[in-house]
């Protein structure tokens, strides 16, 4: 790919870097701009955490073209790792985060290897079934929480050598959630330009061409699936500290539908798409809620309407409108 792409001119990359920094700084002060209330902090923290959760599904859906229905498993792994390790052994946030990443990588590698030869709906069904089995285990195994889950997770502690960071309230958790979101965005942006990202896209668009160029489709699929897992896992890790509780409800279809809807709503393969999508969905549920059952109907309808009428998402719709006018 490097042969085709011309390196961006220095002035352009300076401008881009400035724009990114400006966006990041504005993003950081967003809760203040919305009044600095605890509702503003908790809503934006939730959006940041859920956005990270969605990016795990995003890279599988956008770049592999596969629907993973098992990412609630990684989401729950993060939550359960944080809860169990911090409550039982009193370890700090770094340890639980590392444990989350490690367990997610192992679980995703196992699932990935098993489903290596399956495609499309068999892949989706097997990933879904994996989440159902994990739910059954989490529900029945009292040692990791059982049906009651784990209550009273202590505040997140992240010691930095000299200082220690603690996230007891929503205001204090916001910087962590925002940092995690920025890290994820940076990672996704890098992934899109990496060899793996371009290979994955090629495997999805034209497997025969990819193979003839010496790309092994199975290895690419496995690699993308495995790196997607810790992203969703880390979101679940932070969610456990935010809610101070984890339970089998982390496996609910709600999270799965949120992940998929946020990706398709704006359009696949758009860096900020899942973030904007999840922000819209959470704003509707928190600020314009019509009650649980109606929210389900709305969420489901958004998914159906977008895919049936505007398969390339709101961005595609916008482009079509602009093109029609010119």
């Amino acid at each position, binding site marked *: 790919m490097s042969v085709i792409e011309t390196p961006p001119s220095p002035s352009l990359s300076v401008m881009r870097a400035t724009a990114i920094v400006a966006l990041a700084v504005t993003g950081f002060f967003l809760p203040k701009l919305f009044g600095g209330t605890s509702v503003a902090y908790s809503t934006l923290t939730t959006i940041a955490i859920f956005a990270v959760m969605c990016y795990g599904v995003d890279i599988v*859906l956008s770049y592999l*073209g*596969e*629907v993973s*229905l098992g990412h609630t498993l990684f989401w729950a792994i993060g939550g359960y790792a944080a809860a169990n390790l911090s409550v039982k052994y009193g370890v700090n946030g770094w340890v639980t985060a590392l444990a989350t990443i490690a367990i997610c990588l192992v679980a995703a590698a196992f699932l990935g290897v*098993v*489903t290596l*030869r*399956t495609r*499309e*709906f*068999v892949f*989706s*069904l*097997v990933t*879904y*079934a*994996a989440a*159902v*089995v994990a*739910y*059954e*285990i989490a529900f*029945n195994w009292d040692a990791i929480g059982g049906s009651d889950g784990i209550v009273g997770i202590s505040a997140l502690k992240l010691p930095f050598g000299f200082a220690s960071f603690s996230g007891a309230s929503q205001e204090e958790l916001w910087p962590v959630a925002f940092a995690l979101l920025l890290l994820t965005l940076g990672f996704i942006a890098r992934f899109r330009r990496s060899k793996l990202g371009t290979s994955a896209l090629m495997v999805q668009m034209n497997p025969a061409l990819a193979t003839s160029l010496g790309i092994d489709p199975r290895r690419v699929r496995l690699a993308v699936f495995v790196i997607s897992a810790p992203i969703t896992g880390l979101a679940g890790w932070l969610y456990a500290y935010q809610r101070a509780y984890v339970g089998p409800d982390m496996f609910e*279809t709600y999270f*799965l*539908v949120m992940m*998929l*809807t946020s990706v*398709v709503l704006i359009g696949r393969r758009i860096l900020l798409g899942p973030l904007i999508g999840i922000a819209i969905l959470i704003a509707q549920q928190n600020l314009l809620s019509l009650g*649980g*059952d*109606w*929210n*389900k*109907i709305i*969420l*489901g*309808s*958004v*998914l*159906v309407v977008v*895919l*049936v009428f505007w*398969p390339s998402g709101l961005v595609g719709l916008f482009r079509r409108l602009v093109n029609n006018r010119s």
Partner: protein
Amino acid sequence: MNIAQQIVNGLVLGSGYACIALGWTILLGVARLVNFAHGQLYMLGAFVTWYAMTRWGMPYPVAIVAAIVALAILGAVMQRAMMGLVISQNLTSLMIVTLGLGYILQGGSALIFGGNPQTLPGTLSHAKVELGSLWFTWQDVLVLVATLLLYGAVWLFTQRTRFGSVIRAVAEDPKLAELFGINARVVYLLVFMFECSAVALGAALVAPRSPILTSMGFNEVIMTFVVVVLGGIGSIGGALLAGLGLGLFIAFFGAYVAQAYTTAAAFALLLALLVIRPAGLAAK
């Protein structure tokens, strides 16, 4: 626990799995369509039957017909909405759309039927049959007989009639089939309506065994997916055998190993099979 009773339990469970899996097997095998709203359709079939019996005082057989008709109409509406994606065989989007449809059905049913668990009043579920130390209910007999009859009828229909070969032609290549004067849209519509009414029938027969909730979704029918994949996707005979075999496996595993982990065990079985034979048991 004696072994003969576990074999009976296994057949009872397995015929239930096979019964609910029938619509999906046809849909997947014949039309290559996926439907992740299957669980919610099962829920809806059970609730329509329940509503028709308790609120309108319909007798059980009439309520079953009502559920079949209601879901066939719903199926036609759903398929109408998805038709563009079906014709272009956009499987990824179809999977997500059916997931969204299931979510709509779940929210809508909770609004209509309420959030409380209900029991489908099946008189046959209380009519026990005892043979020596063995026991089962007449409802179980009904499920087994109905399942065998349905599978037989569907097999004859798809393999031995003109319409069966039309369906298979569309499954093979919708564009080519249209060149031969087959209206692929009508075929897809009918197959999807069949899947919905088959799952309504399955729900009306199987659901009296346990309480029903509007929140029961795909998890409730996760075993049917194991049946469909184990049986070799779209193989009618394979699905029947896989259903009965899985029922026996679950009955014995639940009785002798651990009742709480039966789904996990069934899934482990499936994973092992996917590694050894990715195309399923029935594949040659």
